[in-house]
């Protein structure tokens, strides 16, 4: 039997090859996909998040661990779908209109995937109308908006207004983030959640889907 602490450690160390190899081996030995995720992988990512909070880990380590997690999840996801296991929630994420920055947005997307969310990444420069269309088609639980510039932050407000006009605002929770965004601004524009870092964004998303 493959030692599953190796899966935990590979994610913690950001070793994508090892994480994938151990997962493949475990699945070949009929390990339970849900147990792999809930008992080994998500706890590993939670530990990554803890180390980030304590400043033992920084952005590169987060990215590498999320990448290792993602690699392993790609093998497991089809099995979870087959077994009808629900994800932690569905998130639509994007950088707002006019803004092409995506480092933070990608990091949050990876961390959310690592936490078991299904993430639909709309990329950068996403017009409010596009988000409305995606909400109607994909029925997400959460819309996550990113902006790096104070020049483009107002598009967070106009996106929320657009959701309201289209009558879909109440169908989703909206969370916002990005370097110049603040808790105060999030409240001012009527967003449901804000975090100033990628790890915090996971905690907010969990809170928002749990109602």
């Amino acid at each position, binding site marked *: 039997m493959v030692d599953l602490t190796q899966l935990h450690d590979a994610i913690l160390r*950001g070793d*994508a*090859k090892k994480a994938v190899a151990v997962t493949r081996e475990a699945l070949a030995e009929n390990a339970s996909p849900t147990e792999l995720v809930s008992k080994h992988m998500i706890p590993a990512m939670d530990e990554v998040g803890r180390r980030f909070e304590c400043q033992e880990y*920084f*952005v*590169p380590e987060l*990215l*590498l661990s999320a*990448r290792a997690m993602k690699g392993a999840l790609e093998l497991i996801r089809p099995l979870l779908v087959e077994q009808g296991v629900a994800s932690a929630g569905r998130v639509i994420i994007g950088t707002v209109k*006019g803004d*092409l*920055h*995506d*480092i933070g947005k*990608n990091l949050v997307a990876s961390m959310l995937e690592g936490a078991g969310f299904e993430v639909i990444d709309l990329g*950068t*420069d996403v017009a409010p109308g596009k988000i409305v269309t995606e909400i109607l088609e994909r029925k997400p639980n959460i819309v996550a908006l990113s902006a790096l*510039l*104070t*020049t483009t*932050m*107002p598009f967070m*407000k106009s996106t929320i207004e657009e959701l309201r006009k289209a009558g879909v605002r109440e169908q989703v929770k909206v969370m916002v983030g990005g*370097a*110049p965004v*603040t808790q105060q*601004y999030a409240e*001012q524009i009527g967003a449901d959640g804000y975090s100033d870092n990628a790890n915090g964004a996971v905690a907010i998303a969990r809170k928002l889907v749990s109602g």
Partner: protein
Amino acid sequence: MQLKLISCEIFYRELCAAVSRSPNTVDIEFLPKGLHDIGCTSMLARLQEVVDRVEEGKYEAVLLGYGLCNNGIVGLTARATPIVIPRAHDCITLFLGSRQKYFDYFNSHPGVFFKTTGWIERGDSRGELRQLSIQRRIGLDSSFEELVEKYGEDNARYLWDEMCDLGRNYRQLTFIEMGVEPDDRFERQTREEAASRGWDFERVKGDPSMIQRFVDGCWDEREFLIVRPGARVAPTYEDDIITLDQL
């Protein structure tokens, strides 16, 4: 009027030229551009320190040569002397002459990185500020070699693509000609950098009139915020950009 100008060095040539033509007597203090990289709390602390050192009663106003600059001026408090601040997200408004011109250019040219003499001469963070920069602290300014050494070849390549590759977010360099250039060296350098990155290049004519109004004391409240003694700067994230937060 006797004025004290505290400004980001990004405006060095433009402000020196404007001050030389101004009816006012202006004492200038330039601060390093690298203050922008150390996070808004630290940037504010450094700016406040400089503002607080201004001799009481000597000047009619302190001119602050900054935009909202990623919230770096949020919370700045005027002591005995009023502070005048351009209503601008960042320096590009002042280079182009109005926030409407910046807004129009920004919206019609996604992915543009601007260059001026200041951005070329003084754009790179140096010394202590570079070490304190957020880019450094989170590893965004690492060289590829540094990443390989720390994380191995495969991870380094991934991190490089994810964090350090500017080409994903930008596709054009725009040189703003302000009329303070000695010759075409700055434009040429920008053109060469664009070519080497495989980006588009454009030269646009800047408009120094807002900078001139700033130092001349023509402070229309639609264009400049006057922070009277005891008041504090707050962002609006609306068209007027900044406002007063009463203490």
